[in-house]
């Protein structure tokens, strides 16, 4: 029965693949048909609607559980902006048919109102994607929600950032600029819940297929809000920032009294600096996560307080080939106490974690062809994650992207080691309109 279901899914994916060009062509109005004469096309009055249709397919390489397909979707994006006086309203919404999970969804990426108050304050309120900090696919002071399921399944990079419903105030002054983001109701990461990927289950001491999917208790209501603060300033070419955060760990790494996974309260403070060094760009970032419910660090159900730090450097190696390296470290406050409280201390986290990343990206054919490789390697965890990518832009409308997410490690409970049964390859075809 399960087998039959899977093959039917593949049929649907194939049918969508064949249909897409027709659907896309119908939906898309080619804006570039106009002659390149002396008369410019005036921007059409009223709203400008843009977006894309995308078909994505991805399969698991070495296992069938929990699903053979890691990606099987038809996604339609619509976006527009409406501006009047000093107000801008923006909308970005995806409609999604997800064959891998047999699910349909509306993904509201942005629905926000942006306006200045006076001359030095900008407000953006509503659903929006938020990003700050200096890491490349590593996040210390950026405690806005990430979508790791999309990241590992090979969706477009932008989906790594999940939207928040929040109010962002940014004040610009000569002394310092201030960003204040209030998220009235806690927005966790879109964590792996077992529906698409397998990972370590401490209850069985091994990598597990979570069926039913992991269910967690999530702080809800207005008392669960988050506040994130950034003070930033540029001194000549160097960007400096200080950060503070009040909220929760973004992953469900705690257990509550009912024995259910949940998000431990935390506070964070940190800094970052970024600027030119030699022919490249160097950055450094540090952060302290204070686990509010983990007074002595001896509660095995609550994550330890921890320090995180990052050093990065990026430069062009030869024309069109850019290389970037990062060193990232984590130090848990007191894992010995944590370990003592765990049923199986073998799976307790280590006090120190180190991680190196290497990004190589090569652009050819005037940027129409992009080849990339992003590598995570942790000497302390003895695990890795490789992300080769290739993308080709046929035209302003058509774009094809492919890649793989590969994982490995000597242990079953480390960050990437636990994902070792999830190797997958994917292909996405996109039609912009």
């Amino acid at each position, binding site marked *: 029965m399960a087998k039959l279901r899977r093959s039917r899914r593949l049929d649907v994916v194939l049918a969508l693949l064949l249909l897409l060009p027709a659907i896309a062509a119908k939906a898309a109005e080619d804006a570039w048909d106009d002659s*390149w004469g002396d008369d410019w096309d005036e921007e059409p009055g009223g709203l400008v609607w843009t977006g894309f249709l995308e078909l994505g397919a991805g399969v698991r390489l070495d296992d069938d559980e929990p699903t053979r397909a890691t990606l099987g979707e038809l996604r339609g994006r619509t976006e527009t902006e409406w501006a009047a006086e000093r107000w801008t309203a923006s909308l970005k919404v995806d409609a999604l048919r997800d064959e891998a999970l047999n699910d349909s969804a509306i993904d509201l990426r942005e629905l926000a109102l942006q306006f200045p108050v006076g001359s030095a304050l900008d407000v953006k309120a509503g659903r929006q994607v938020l990003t700050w900090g200096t890491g490349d696919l590593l996040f210390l002071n950026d405690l806005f929600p990430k979508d790791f399921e999309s990241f590992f399944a090979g969706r*477009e990079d932008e989906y790594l*950032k999940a939207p928040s419903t929040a109010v962002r105030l940014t004040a610009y002054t000569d002394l310092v600029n201030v960003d204040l983001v209030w998220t009235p109701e806690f927005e966790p990461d879109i964590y792996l819940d077992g529906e698409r990927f397998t990972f370590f289950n401490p209850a069985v001491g091994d990598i597990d297929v979570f069926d039913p999917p992991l269910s967690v208790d999530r702080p809800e209501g207005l008392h669960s809000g988050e506040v994130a603060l950034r003070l930033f300033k540029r001194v000549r070419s160097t960007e400096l920032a200080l950060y503070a955060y009040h909220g929760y760990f973004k992953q469900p790494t705690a257990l509550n009294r009912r024995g259910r996974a949940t998000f431990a309260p935390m506070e964070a403070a940190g800094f970052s600096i970024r600027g030119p060094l030699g022919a490249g760009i160097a950055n450094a970032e540090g952060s302290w996560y204070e686990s509010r419910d983990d007074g002595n660090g001896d509660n095995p159900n609550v994550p330890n307080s921890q320090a995180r730090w990052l050093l990065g450097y990026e430069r062009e190696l030869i024309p069109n080939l850019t290389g970037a390296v990062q060193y990232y470290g984590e130090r848990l406050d007191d894992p010995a106490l944590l370990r003592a409280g765990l049923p199986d201390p073998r799976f307790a986290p280590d006090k120190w974690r180190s991680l190196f990343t290497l990004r190589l990206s090569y652009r050819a054919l005037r940027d129409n062809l992009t080849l990339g490789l992003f590598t995570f390697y942790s000497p302390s965890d003895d695990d890795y994650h490789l992300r080769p990518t290739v993308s080709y832009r046929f035209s302003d409308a058509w774009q094809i992207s492919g890649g793989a997410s590969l994982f490995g490690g000597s242990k079953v409970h480390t960050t990437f080691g636990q994902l070792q049964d999830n190797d997958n390859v994917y292909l996405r075809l996109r039609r912009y309109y």
Partner: protein
Amino acid sequence: MKPSAWFAAFATVAVSTASAVAAEQPLTDADAIVARANLAAYYAGADGRSEARMVISDSQGRQQVRQFVVLRRDVSEPGYPAAGGGDQEFLVVFSRPSDVRGTVYLVEKHVDRDDDRWLYLPGLDLVKRISAGDKRTSFVGSHYFYEDVSGRLPAADQHELIETTDAHYVLRHRAVVPDSVEFSEYTTWIDRETFLPMRIDYRNSNGEVYRRVEAQAVETFGGHPTVTRTLVSDLAGGGSTEMRFRNIGYDIGLPEDVFSERSLRAPPRQWLE
């Protein structure tokens, strides 16, 4: 000399009377001609704005389009001559095609150190810093280079006046650091009256012209002769990019804070429309 210096389309002759004198009495100093051409191509007025549209054609004739607004401001700091030649700031806001709509490119051009460059990617709300190196690589998929946006410093090349015709100064330029560029040398035809570079031929080490930039139309705005149509051709691989400018204005009073991180997330609409 800024080789393909029309990107900003802010061409001028700083003082028109000086220009008239120059036209009668040909200049003979290559560095002086290049300095004048630099001002003509990049320093018209204290600031400027222009809408730009590129049509990129590959060797098989397939076309792509880019459309954007460029804002430019000269940084007037003590010690810099008011006539220009110093640091500048550029803000480039893209409106087409749809996958780059909302992308913003901010450049601070420095004459004494590497430029600072940022790219804002709206899908990720990401302010990405771009390293100084890759300036002679494709600008948003066109045959123009990043360096064409903000210009190449006159001091980066050695200049030689090889001919003075009725209409043009013809100069040959070689990079001070040859390994830093893809060309072996390039030749410019600089208009004797406007000091605008009208044609640039880039040669490889075999002496073959593999890249050509041509000014195809010049109009005057606010007293500043300005290139309004330009073509860059890839003579080796085939393909070309044509760029046109419109709604050009100079000395429009762009405030300093337009060229800041604020404009990446909230593009300054009043100056863009």
